[in-house]
């Protein structure tokens, strides 16, 4: 068994408005001198530490957990899972 760090990034699906990201873009970034920035989407990240046999199993277990416990609401959100060896 090895210890893995798993990042779960939860964000609104494309097409669903994200007023937080829009405000950061419009009222902070574009008011500075960063006019090349075109879009900002806000997200929430959970960092897990999990003991599993390998990286693939760690990812599978966390994906199942996120689906079973509704860590995200699939009507509005999507998740991205990133696994790192500790």
């Amino acid at each position, binding site marked *: 068994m090895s210890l893995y760090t798993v990042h779960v990034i939860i964000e*609104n699906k494309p097409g669903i*408005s994200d*007023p*937080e990201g829009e*405000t950061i873009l419009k009222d902070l970034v574009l008011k500075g001198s960063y006019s090349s920035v075109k879009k900002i989407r806000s997200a929430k990240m959970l960092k897990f530490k999990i003991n599993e046999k390998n990286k693939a199993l760690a990812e599978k277990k966390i994906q199942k957990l996120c689906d079973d416990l*509704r860590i995200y*609401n699939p*009507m*509005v959100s999507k998740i991205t899972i990133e696994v790192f060896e500790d």
Partner: protein
Amino acid sequence: MKVGVVVFPGSNCDRDMYHVLSDVFKIDTQFFWHEKKLPKNLDAIILPGGFSYGDRLRAGAIAAHSPVISDVKKFASHGMPILGVCNGFQILVEAELLPGALLKNNSLNFMCKWTNLIVENNSTPFTNKLKMHQKIPIPIANGEGRYYADGKTINLLKKNHQIVFRYADDVNGSTLRIAGICNKEGNVVGMMPHPERATEPEINPIDSKPASLIFESLLNAIGVTQ
């Protein structure tokens, strides 16, 4: 008749609901801690507003896994009238008893203000004494009250008459200005505004009668004549 008010860690409109049910409408009302089983002799269940588990993760997401929810689901499938108000609505959605999602208000602010609802379905246990398109002056108090459902779900909601209340004006960016919905069978209703804060003239500066009809509808639905 007996109505159960479920209390989650962080519920804070449970006592307001209890007061209105027991003192204003003289209903035998009992609190149930979310870890308890619900008795079989209940006539209706109400999930009150507040901030269960501090709205960690997102509003209602953790309370939706409370032990009491399996009983709520069981009674819902038997046709018992169930009402979720504000956080109670968010819990019903997260428990998948109602479809959709409640997102942060467009303003990103906690909104506490009077709104007007329009009745869109007057055949649920909580709206049968109201007229179609009747206006209800009622307050909202939430940070995550923007109802969202995808196109397919919205079509189903329309087809099955599941849209129960809409805001008269756009208050927070909700899809179709939806403020409350019901399940396909109509016995499970969720609404973001607070009827328990609008039924008494002392605290409703506009008109307390329409919001009172929500509770009178429940009495009517469970066969109590007034």
